[in-house]
Every structure is written in C-alpha cells, then in structure tokens.
C-alpha cells in the first residue's frame, strides 16, 4: 500500500506542455514541501504561468502530471479549501464589487458568504469591499486576488507574481503574510521573475528557463555560492597577482583591472602595500543573488 501523501505536498512530475512549435514547459519536475515558502523563478516567458496553470487544472499537460496532496486539481473534493490560487490573468468583472466577486466564489465552493468579508479584512481591503473592482488600483486588485486565494483557508497557496503592483509597504506586508502562512504549516509556492524580490521570503527556490529546470536549491545554499569579490585597479597587475599568489582572480573587462575572490579588500591593500604595488582602486563587490540568477538563466531568451 502506498503511503498517504501529505495533503499539502505539491509534486510536479516530468511535466511538459507543447503550444504549437513551442515547448513551453519541458520535462519539469520538482516537489514543494508543506511549511515552506518556495520561490518559482524564471525570466518572463520561462513557462512559470503555464506550469502553475497545469498544476491548477486550467491547462492540460502534454505529458507528465502535477498533483497536490496526491490529487490532480480537478479531482480535489473541495478544491478551494485545499488550494488557494492567485493568478496573473485571473480577472474580475469591473462592474462587480470586490465583495460580490468573492461571494460568487463562496457560493460555488459551498463556503458561507461571510468568508468574503473575513478575507477582505485579512488583506486590508475591508474599506473597499463595497466598491466596484473597476475603481481599484493595481495593488488593490492584487490584494483582492490574495483574498480570493485565502477564501477557503486552504492548505496550499499558489501565487503568480503576487508582488506586482504592490508598493513597498505592500511588499513588506506580503512578506509577513507569506511567512506567517508557512509558519502555520501551509505550503506556499510563489512565482516571480525577480529573485531579489523573494529572496528574503522564500526558503527554497526552483529556477526555470526556457521551460526547463536549471536549479533547485535552498536559498541559503545559493547565498553561499554568490560570494563577494573585490575589484582592484592597478598599473602593475602582474606584480599584484604574484603577491596574492593562491587567491582566485581573473582579469576585468578593462586593462589593469583584476577581480579577486575570497580575499577581503583590507587584506589585498595590505599585501599590495607590502609588495610596493600602486593601487588606483579597491572596491568590494556585492555579487548578489540576482547576478547568480542571471548567470543561471543566461542565454535562455525569455521571449521565444
């Protein structure tokens, strides 16, 4: 007998989707564990939204499977109570109020109508509940989308670019919300095209480019990889290189520039002084995750 899968585990198994001649998603596999926030990252057009839509039963996979707690989405007995999703192209009727939009979904899911006001309150939208969606700002629509995702108090949350259109205060609020949801044992899968946007929030990342997985890791691992370096400008690069024997370094883009890794700037200055090497510049570089992300997804054009 197979062990019963955790209701909050997302399993994407060799998932592919072909749109005409374009392979939007290509043999993609990953698992998202309950109680974690996982960032689903990739440049625009990498296949993030298509993957999420396949996970939610909106797009039929060409091959492979995506399950939540062992079920395909369409087989979930009470879908909104198992999975909450906020998708980018999920619209609202401009002439419906935020409250009416959610009440329609409450009725469809068999949830009490008061849940609409509860989740609107949760996302800070209570004052605008009775206003038509047409009058909402982009940030308010994002919040309404989140309210929709939270409607059934689901075990799993799937959010597509939820930070788009949020102001800095909104982004900070979103981070806290996602962290608290994960702390409550929920599974959160959040897509973004900016690693820097989610690096403070997520535990794990799945990075895809051109429909394929290029990296799956814990954020802590990635941070360790993205070491800092020091840029040194000197007319005597060869002498400095000799003096810094053993350190990892490479020539910079301009003549007379060295990029030194693994040695602090102060140490380089001391070595240079001792060797009598003249320095024109000594700049510590913070190579951040975004650069690593770009390197990983490099050459995989987002627009195909």
């Amino acid at each position: 007998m197979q062990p019963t899968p955790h209701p909050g585990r997302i399993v994407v198994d060799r998932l592919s989707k072909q749109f005409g001649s374009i392979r939007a998603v290509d043999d993609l596999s990953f698992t998202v564990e309950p109680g974690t926030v996982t960032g689903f990252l990739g440049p625009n057009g990498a296949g993030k939204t298509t993957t999420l839509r396949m996970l939610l039963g909106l797009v039929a996979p060409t091959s492979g499977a995506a399950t939540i707690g062992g079920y395909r989405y369409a087989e979930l007995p009470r879908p909104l109570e198992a999975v909450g999703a906020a998708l980018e192209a999920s619209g609202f009727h401009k002439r419906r109020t935020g409250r009416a939009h959610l009440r329609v979904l409450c009725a469809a899911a068999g949830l009490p109508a008061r849940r609409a006001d509860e989740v609107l309150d949760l996302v800070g939208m209570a004052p605008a509940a009775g206003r038509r969606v047409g009058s909402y700002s982009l940030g308010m629509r994002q919040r309404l989308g989140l309210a929709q995702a939270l409607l059934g108090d689901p075990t799993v949350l799937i959010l597509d670019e939820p930070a788009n259109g949020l102001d800095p205060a909104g982004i900070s609020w979103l981070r806290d919300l996602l962290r608290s949801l994960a702390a409550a044992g929920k599974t959160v899968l959040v897509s973004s095209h900016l690693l820097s946007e989610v690096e403070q929030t997520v535990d794990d990342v799945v990075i895809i480019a051109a429909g394929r997985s290029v990296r799956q890791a814990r954020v802590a691992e990635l941070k360790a990889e993205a070491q800092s370096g020091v840029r040194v400008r000197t007319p005597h690069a060869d002498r400095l290189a000799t003096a810094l024997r053993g350190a990892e370094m490479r020539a910079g883009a301009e003549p007379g520039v060295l990029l030194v890794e693994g040695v602090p700037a102060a140490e380089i200055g001391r070595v240079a002084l001792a060797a009598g090497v003249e320095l024109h510049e000594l700049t510590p570089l913070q190579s951040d995750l975004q650069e690593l992300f770009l390197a990983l997804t490099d050459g995989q054009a987002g627009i195909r």
Partner: protein
Amino acid sequence: MKAFHSELLKIRSLAAGWSTAIGVLLVTTLALLFWYLVLRSQLTPRTDLRESAPDFTETLFTSGQYFGLLLTMIFGVTIVTGEYTHQTITATFLATPKRRRVVLAKIAAAVSCALLFWAISTVLAVGGGSAILVSLDVPLDAGLSTGFGAVALNALAYLVWVVFGVGLGTMLRNQVLAVVAAILLYLGELGAFLVFPRLAAAFDQEWISSLQYYLPGGASQAMTSLVPADGVPAWWIAALVLLGYGAATTVYGTLVTAARDVS
C-alpha cells in the same frame, strides 16, 4: 446546486439580467401598442370578430415575442462570453474544476432567467392584450384557448433560445462574434423567407421552400404559430427541430469547454 447558486449570484450582481428584463418589458409594451393600432385599422364593420378572435388573441398574448426572444438569446450568450471577456472564467474553474457542472449550472440559471423574462412579458401581454380585445369588441372566450396555447409555446421558445444562446457562447468565446452570430441565426429567418421560396420556384420543387422552417429562426416562427398555414410544419415538429439545435450546441459547447486550455 452550488454552481447553480453561484451562477444566479453572478447574474444578480450585474446589470445584464435586469437590463434584459426591462428590455423585454419595453418591447412587449411597444408591440402591444403596435398591434393595437394595426388591428384597429384592419377592422371593418364586416369583419367576423368571432372567427378572427383566435388569430388576434394569439398575436396579442405573445406581444413582444420577436425581440424578447432575441434579447433573451443574447443574454444567454453573454453569461458565458462575459466570463472570457473579463477573465473571470479562471476563478470560476478554480472553484468548480468539473467544467461540465459549470456549463450545466449556466444553462439552469439562464433557463430560470428566461422563464422570468417570459413571465414578465406574458403578464403584460395577456393583461394589455385582453384590454385591447375588449376595446375592439372581440369576444374574449372565442380566442382564449388558442391564446393560452400560444403563451405556453412562447415559454418553450424562451427556454430553447436561451439554451441555444448559452451553447453559442460556449462555442464562440469572443463576445462580439458570438452576439453577431446569435443575431444572424435569429434574424436569418428574414433572409431565408426570401431565399428559399425563390429557390423552390427556380428548381420547381415546392419542398425547398419549407426548408426555411428547419433553420432556427424559421422553426421558432413555426413553433409559435398555432394558427395553421400552408407549408409550415406543425408546432411540435418545429419544437423538436429547435430543441435539436439547442441540444447540439450545448453538447458541443460542453465538450469543447471541458477540453480547452484556459490561459
């Protein structure tokens, strides 16, 4: 049942349902006025009022039917296409991933609304129509059975056309395209009325002329006419033809809705 309740809420939270109801009310009022003027000008002292009563009663009791059905069908189209235009279909399918249920719920909600539109039109048409008959000295009792028969068939027409509208909406998700197609199919009867008799004359085959009654618009006309006319099939044959169109579009629409990617 949950999906049905949700569909009713969707309709109630927007203006389309009320606008259609008001539209039906308006076309019924205008039609009553129109028929009153026409009948009054046609009547002469030699008209046999008792003999004309069934025809008059049928016409008056279903006043506003022609445009009322068109408005109801367009309403049926838009409750489906509106979801694609405003991209609310994603939220709908997330809440009810079994898409057949969504289509069935839409049909059930559309039929409920169509019967309400029919009821609004009928109360006005029977009330106003009776008043007109009395004012023209037409004996009410002579036309009553035909009149109520026509009212019942009118209900069937509202039902079939709204189902046809929903079916069209599921087939053609583009709102403008679907509404234009609906209008063409409905008013196409006007063109068929001109084309088929000419074809029949050209080929000297009388049966070609009656083909027009097997197209949706013509079938609807045939179904709602209880007073017999040459070459027009019986109301129940026409009803079966129309139900066939409604069933075909619905089944096809349900199948494609279930199979299509939503992105």
